[in-house]
């Protein structure tokens, strides 16, 4: 029997969902009539119009912006540069004015500011096309990110932050492709390391912001996206260090060390502070990838016969995934038993 009244309260203040009601019906706690009524109330309580309104706003704005991008991509020969710039500038100013008038507390204002941020990119592209500046592509993205950084900062809009982060990523990737040497391996690893650190900084910023009560950072999904990206960027060099001799370079070792530190910090934070199983699972998937790569190299390198290596490798993979899964399940159960602080 659960005697703790706090735990009962905590459970009863959780948002209702169809699956929980179905489980109660299946366990015989609710009869068919009660179940049907509960499901009906749940559906009726959903903020349908808010949701539809937001969806129309996002899809509508995305389509209009795509139309604008396609319009300038068509590269009208008949349209003079002045007219092109005037059109973009008018649209940009309209978005900024709209955002200012609507206010950044409302979703429409945030979306308008995001549109303005995207139009800055269109303006830079048209500028590059018109004056043939000869600038590298990475400069476009870095310049774009720098120009809109102020808007991003004041937007209080997670989607705008992610878009900005994506621009910075593109700038870094293109810098590596266009500027750094291709004869050595380390610039590639350096790129992964920088991208991973950028995403980790994003995760940290989101967690700090959420902790300080920023309502726009309350939803966890931006953190999951950034953590997944960070782990991908750090797992690749770590796996390469394990498997490919050519990658044995101080930069790769540094990337692997960063991976280890990130996992350690991630475990502590998502286990004891934020208590987020999905983030822990992302960390576990990263560990799975590196450990399985390491085992694969060891097994296939040590055993001459492929059949024996395959058999051993298969069991090892099961052991690793079971071990990680077991740890995740135990952790989840332990987290569920602890009251939220």
């Amino acid at each position, binding site marked *: 029997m659960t005697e703790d009244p706090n735990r009962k309260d905590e459970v009863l203040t959780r948002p*209702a969902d*169809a*699956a929980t009601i179905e489980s109660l019906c299946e366990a015989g706690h609710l009869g068919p009539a009660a179940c049907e009524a509960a499901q009906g109330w749940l559906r009726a309580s959903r903020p349908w119009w808010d949701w539809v309104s937001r969806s129309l706003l996002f899809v509508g704005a995305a389509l209009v912006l795509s139309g604008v991008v396609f319009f300038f991509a068509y590269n009208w020969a008949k349209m003079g540069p002045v007219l092109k710039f005037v059109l973009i500038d008018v649209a940009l100013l309209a978005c900024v004015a709209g955002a200012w008038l609507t206010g950044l507390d409302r979703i429409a204002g945030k979306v308008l500011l995001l549109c303005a941020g995207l139009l800055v990119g269109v303006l830079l592209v048209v500028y590059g096309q018109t004056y043939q500046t000869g600038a590298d592509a990475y400069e476009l993205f870095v310049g774009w990110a720098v120009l809109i950084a102020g808007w991003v900062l004041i937007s209080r809009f997670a989607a705008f932050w992610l878009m900005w982060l994506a621009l910075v990523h593109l700038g870094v990737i293109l810098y590596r492709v266009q500027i750094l040497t291709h004869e050595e391996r380390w610039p590639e690893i350096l790129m992964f390391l920088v991208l991973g650190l950028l995403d980790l900084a994003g995760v940290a910023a989101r967690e700090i912001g959420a902790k300080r009560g920023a309502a726009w950072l309350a939803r966890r999904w931006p953190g999951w996206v950034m953590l997944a990206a960070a782990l991908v960027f750090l797992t690749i060099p770590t796996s390469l260090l394990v498997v490919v001799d050519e990658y044995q370079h101080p930069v790769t070792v540094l990337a692997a060390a960063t991976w280890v530190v990130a996992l350690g910090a991630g475990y502590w934070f998502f286990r004891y502070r934020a208590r987020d199983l999905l983030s822990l699972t992302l960390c576990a998937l990263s560990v799975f990838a590196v450990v399985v790569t390491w085992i694969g190299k060891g097994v296939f390198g040590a055993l001459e*016969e492929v059949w024996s290596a395959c058999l051993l490798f*298969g069991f090892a993979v099961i052991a690793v*995934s*079971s071990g990680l899964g077991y740890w995740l399940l135990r952790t989840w159960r332990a987290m569920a038993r602890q009251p939220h602080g």
Partner: protein
Amino acid sequence: MADRPMTLGDVLERLQAGGLLDAQGADGIAEELCLSREAPSAPWFVKVLFALGACVAAASFFVFLACAGLFPKSAGALLVMGLVLVAGAAALRFVSGHVSVAQLSLAVSVFGAQLALAVSVAGHAMALVGAAGVVEGPWGDMLARVALASLILCIVLYPLHRDALHRFLSCLLVAAATTVWLVASERYHGLHVLVLLEAVAIGVFFTRWRLPQVLRPMAYALACCLPLTVLLVICINSATLWGILWPGEKAVLTPAWPSSAVLALWLIWLYLWAAGGVARWRQEAVLVAMVVTVALGAFTSPGILAGGGLLVLGFGRRDSRLLGLGLAFFPVFLVIYYYNLDLDLATKSYVLAGSGGILLVVRALLGWRPWAREGAS
């Protein structure tokens, strides 16, 4: 509309107020919810880790059997060996689910379930390869046997192999094998039948007042299959996409309208479910949604309807998995639809901006309707 989402406590209170639940029953439910929180089952993202491990291990076992010369020469023997492995895996899963060795029980259970899953996946692969080759014949017939064998295995193993992940993958396999058979044997119109079956099953599963635990893997597998099948219908329907997927091959066109019609009706069904029943069809919001859906069915691609349906279901049930599926596929279908429009870039830009503008105007106009203002307050 309440500022906060409806909680489980609110539901219990309303049930008690309506005479559908007594105080003792409400206490029992609170106890049950506390207990289920203390021993929760694995969430879907942990199952992804299990599935990944099992598939890699199954591939290794498969290669092991091939390299060790343990692969039977005849297809019949391969089929039998595959079935033996599948049966062994089900038995192993049963045993590992019931073993109890104090602290080790969870570890043993997880390892046993993982091993059983990997062996079953390898066994399925062997059995299906065996089923394909057991009788010589044209390619289409071989794939038909694979689809049939996967269906039989799914029906037999669904109650026997008591693992939600196995059940999910097994249902996914049936849909995938059927789709491959329909495409390879050039029965393209059959894809519309598949869309119909998947849509009806999803509707029945998720809109009924109770979806039993045992049927959830099947329901979610179908929810994953529907957008994928529709994606295939769109690719086959589009000469442009067909050319990208199979360069040099002649485009095979099948109309998309049967799937569009099916999915438009399906979406209307979901609206009525969300509104609280067929009797609510006269409500202005429902009528507007129905008209928009018919227009979408007539002028756009079936994918937009499929993605929209998953979003409606996910939002109505407060189900993040369905909502995530809808959110993942809806933009894909939107992009494909506009990409496929047979228009030059300039006209396409007008169409894009125009349709976006229409959505924004519709939003502004509907926002003034009494039901919208009431809903947003």
